[in-house]
């Protein structure tokens, strides 16, 4: 469960300060599939960073499973990210020098999981995303869709409660994009909380709830499948 209350975030940009978030409230319950939508500059990336404990708010409360994370130091945040959150990025962000398996092992490595266990888990996850035969490939030897599936396997490595996907289909053709979205849907059915940041209505349609933000504030929330269909028209 993630709970944001009256969250503000300003950061310096050149000579001025940008107000990315201006008093935002948001609660995401365990097992939800939430899409966050908004035009560029709306603050959705900043929101994603806060949800994933990559950054802290300038003001306001961020609670993860009832604990305030705003008082934690960087290393403690890193630990939380490693255990509770899995990231999927638009540009995949795989380490080019490592194989698919090693990329998936990386989060486990930082948690101090022994090698044997790590490698078994990585292979298992790659099989789950349909890349059992690409284990020893480097990212450069994989297609965009395959890379994103490796990234999803990496996000799942430490069995986190939350998967944060930031425009995961943004760099993919629609066919590969669909595979990724179906995978996220499947993970949600298996109990993961999915937070999908996107401006693509087709992608957002997979969610059970859409949160629209604009100028750093909540614009509207749409909750049911029917409403989503209506809202996206």
């Amino acid at each position: 469960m993630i709970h944001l209350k009256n969250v503000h975030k300003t950061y310096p940009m050149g000579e001025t300060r940008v107000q990315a978030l201006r008093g935002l409230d948001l609660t995401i319950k365990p097992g939800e599939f939430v899409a966050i939508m908004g035009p560029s500059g709306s603050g959705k990336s900043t929101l994603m960073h806060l949800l994933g404990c990559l950054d802290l708010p300038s003001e306001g409360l961020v609670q993860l499973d009832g604990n305030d994370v705003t008082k934690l130091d960087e290393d403690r945040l890193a630990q939380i990210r490693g255990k509770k959150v899995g990231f999927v990025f638009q540009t995949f962000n795989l380490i080019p020098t490592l194989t698919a398996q090693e990329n998936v092992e990386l989060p486990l490595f930082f948690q101090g999981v022994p090698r044997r266990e790590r490698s078994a888990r990585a292979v298992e996850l790659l099989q789950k995303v349909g890349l059992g035969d690409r284990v020893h490939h480097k990212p450069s030897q994989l297609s965009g869709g395959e890379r994103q599936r490796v990234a999803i396997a990496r996000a799942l490595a430490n069995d986190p409660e939350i998967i944060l996907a930031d425009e995961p289909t943004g760099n993919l053709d629609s066919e590969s994009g669909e595979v990724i979205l179906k995978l996220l849907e499947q993970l949600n059915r298996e109990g993961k909380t999915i937070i999908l940041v996107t401006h693509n209505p087709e992608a957002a349609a997979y969610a059970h709830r859409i949160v629209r933000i604009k100028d750093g504030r909540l614009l509207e929330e749409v909750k049911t499948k029917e409403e989503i269909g209506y809202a996206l028209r």
Partner: protein
Amino acid sequence: MLFDSVVDNIRFSVRNLRHRPKRSWLTILGILIGVAAVIALVSLGQGMQRSITQEFEAFGYNVVMIAGHGEHRLGMGALLGAHTFRLDLTPLKKIPGVEAIGGVLIKTPYVSAGRREGYLLTWGMAPELMQAFGNYYKPELGRALKPGETQTAVLGSIVAKDLGLSVGDKFVIETLEFEVVGILEKRADPDVNYAIMVPIATLQELVGERERLSLVLIRTAQQHAGHAGHDAASVAKEVRRVVKELRGKDDLNVHTTGEMLDLMQNLVGILQAALGGIAAISLLVGGVGVMNTMYTAVLERTREIGVMKAVGARRRHILTLFLLESGFMGLVGGLLGALVGLGIAVGIKLLAPIFMPGTTLEVGFSPGLMLGVLGFSFVLGALSGFLPARAAAKLPPVEALRYE
């Protein structure tokens, strides 16, 4: 589990280094050159110290030498005899602690052996003296000079080869014929290797320097436990006093081999420190190269660092990764540099006799030095990489991820 993580860290670091092989190798080259320079100089310096010490050990630390002023050239037999003097050795023999004493006259008379001829370094030496210094003037073939002989000669190893003479052969100095009775072991001092040694009285007569000397060698009694012996320094003091009294003026140098050893070792030490300092600067430059490479690597992999932080890497993980990378470059540079440095030292040792005939150089190889250098170069690499690695570890994840 800890070992597990160390091995993985190392593998990851090596992978990153191999990802940019040219840059990594060039950086390693910087360290390599510095380490090679240090190792070559230190090995040669140590070898030099060692061979000087060995020479003095063979000659004896308990030796007092008297030489004319202006005969300051270093080297045991380096007194080419420009300055000769008269000195009655009888009063000196009575000084307590004097065990053996004898004069040496060093000249360059005309020597011919068949078709080979020239003005060659010739030592007139009391046969008794030669036997007293039998450890140093040690015949490898044949024997030393014997008391009572007049026309026998013992040759230094190189001059014997140059003249094509062996034991039993005859050759001519000025007008007299000499028989080779022995050939000396090779020594580090070229003046010995090039010396023709004949009975002093014969040489004095031959060159018209009757009773004149270039050098006096005095062997003092060794110190024995429980027996008040005479150390060379106190004998030298007494010799100095007697010589001054005999000549009425202080125009001869009296010094001990111990003093000469100290002097030479000081000189070698200064030389070594100066050259070593220059070599150390190049090592420092190598370190700067590592730092430069690591800063570039951090900049290039900023996004990668952001990703690693996003998936749970803590500061120490990033720090360790980059430190290992730079440490590795140091270690490899150190290892290869040590080998190249030793190679250079051995090369100089082999080439030295070609450019400076008669000299022999030793190469001091010490495993301790090698291990020290390897450890040092790893630490140098890691230290040079510390600031870049810390900069990487401190990157805020969001900024690192946003980096293009």
